[in-house]
């Protein structure tokens, strides 16, 4: 039972800064997701918690204890790797048993604990197989079982679902969430998939270029993004981000007024609005009219993209909508859900 803290942690290789002086506190039993694109530093951060990388500066604490000088095996952690890291020459049972064997657990106790772990991931029938005789999903569960057999203080998971096909990923997501709650272990989870982050996390740390851009619950991140990056990264389809300026009580872009806004006039503003907060209406009945660029039917809705000058805006329309390209439509914006960002600093400028 322990939380994890990072204090002013930096990781640098020569000139390149992978993690830039970041601090983070993870509560005991919290499921924290490190979310971001490749190269943002999320995996590096987790590997530093694990002890597989050494921070250039800063402190890593697990449960109040500074663990910088501890080897991974002494940190009481368990890790699920992206490619599972299963021992190919051992059976499933031996794979799961390995942490116990190596830590000196009494030989008689091992089989029972292995069986329990296997049952929890529904692998009881596969104990005598070798990894190469298993499917991707089964291998992933072996990796999980190996992690939970020990009841460590912290679970670390490095994109464990990224090698599974889409359907399996959805199933495993639910299983992971359930498992982590049942076992009541602090979990640090790395992913680039924002849907995984939204569905699994108690809190999400969105990372970009070595820095945590925002730390908050999924709801907070979704509804209250603090930076342009977070706004554009979370949500699918992505939030519309329109470059323009505010003057004369309205937001102007591409040479025309888009929306009435009561705000200070300023230039270099980015207006953010999610597709689900824009409705497609008759031309003239909304805030602006524009020609259709594309119309994509996803089954549960139709995504209508219109051309506004050089920029595009996507709106989510009812799934029976049928629109031809270059037809003119009207867009009605729900002005209670707009966000304004400063283009230069990328920070949110409205509260």
């Amino acid at each position: 039972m322990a939380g994890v803290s990072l204090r002013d942690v930096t990781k640098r290789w020569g000139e390149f800064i992978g993690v830039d002086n970041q601090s983070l506190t993870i509560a005991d039993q919290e499921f924290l997701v490190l979310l971001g694109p490749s190269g943002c530093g999320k995996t590096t951060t987790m590997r530093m918690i694990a002890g597989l990388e050494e921070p250039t500066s800063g402190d890593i604490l697990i449960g109040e204890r500074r663990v910088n000088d501890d080897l991974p095996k002494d940190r009481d952690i368990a890790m699920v790797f992206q490619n599972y890291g299963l021992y190919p020459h051992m059976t499933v049972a031996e794979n799961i048993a390995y942490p116990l064997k190596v830590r000196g657990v009494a030989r008689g106790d091992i089989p029972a604990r292995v069986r329990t772990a296997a049952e929890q991931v529904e692998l009881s029938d596969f104990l005598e197989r070798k990894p190469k005789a298993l499917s991707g999903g089964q291998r992933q569960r072996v990796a999980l079982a190996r992690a939970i057999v020990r009841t460590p203080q912290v679970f670390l998971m490095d994109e464990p679902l990224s090698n599974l096909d889409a359907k399996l990923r959805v199933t495993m997501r639910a299983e992971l969430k359930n498992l982590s709650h049942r076992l009541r272990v602090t979990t640090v989870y790395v992913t680039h998939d924002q849907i995984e982050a939204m569905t699994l996390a108690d809190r999400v740390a969105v990372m970009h270029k070595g820095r945590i851009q925002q730390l908050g619950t999924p709801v907070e991140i979704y509804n209250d993004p603090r930076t342009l990056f977070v706004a554009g990264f979370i949500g699918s389809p992505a939030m519309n981000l329109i470059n323009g300026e505010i003057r004369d009580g309205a937001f102007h872009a591409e040479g025309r007024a888009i929306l009435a806004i009561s705000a200070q006039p300023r230039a270099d503003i980015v207006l953010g609005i999610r597709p689900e907060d824009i409705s497609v209406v008759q031309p003239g009945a909304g805030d602006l009219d524009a020609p259709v660029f594309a119309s994509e039917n996803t089954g549960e809705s139709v995504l209508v993209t219109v051309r506004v000058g050089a920029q595009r805006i996507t709106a989510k329309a009812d799934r029976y909508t049928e629109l031809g390209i270059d037809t003119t439509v009207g867009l009605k914006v729900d002005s209670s859900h707009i966000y304004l960002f400063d283009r230069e600093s990328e920070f949110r400028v409205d509260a």
Partner: protein
Amino acid sequence: MPLSGRQQTRIWNGLQVVLILLFTLIMLVPIVWIALAAFKQHVDVYQLKLFFAPTLENFRTVFEEPYSLGRKLRNSTVVATATVLVAIPIATLAAYAFSRFDMRGRTLLLVLILATQFVPAVVIVLPFFVMFRDLGLLDTLRGLVLINTAIVMPFAIWMIKGFIDGIPIDTEEAALVDGSSRIQVIRNIVLPMAAPGLVTASIFCFIIAWNEFLFALILTNRDAVTLPVGLALFKAEEGDLWNLLAAAGIIIMVPMFVLALIIRKHFVQGMTMGAVR
């Protein structure tokens, strides 16, 4: 106070470096020692001196009679170069075919080609000696080129095949669709792309031919003697002139070092013929 995990790792690392340096020293000392001897005068050799007045006299002497290393150097160069010039084109064609085409018995052929490497040279040299004698090929450079071509061929085929395997087939297929003949494809597309691989294989085969000993020993006598065998003749004629021997050794070694360094990344692949990538 017990050492922390990180401190233990540091100490262990330090030990590793020491061991590595020790190993490396053992690996390099003989080479360095022989290299030094080449620059020593005769007396210094006997006195085991580490510091001495260097001289280039040895290098001059070995080129004169009766050692005439110059001729042997020329022979070695000619044989190795000619071997490469003959073997590489033949091997390239075969390697391309093995790589791009399915054929009945392909695996079997490849295995057999690989297996010939493991036939002890002594078994083969006897009939060759008789055949060369009958054909008047003894003590000729032509004969040596023939035999060396055969020796390097399996290595060449495997190395070049490995390179061609690594070239994406798309460009060739596009050219074939556009109307090129297979020969044109080989000439215009594959050869340029495989050029680094061909160079590597050529250098590798050059080294093998240069260092070849047994066949050169048995199949030559006077005119076509190559450098490594020349070294052996030293031992017969001049029992103890190590400084000269060392000089000759350097002349043999240094070109090989240079070449080996150039292709070092592919050395392993070449020698194991693809067993380890």
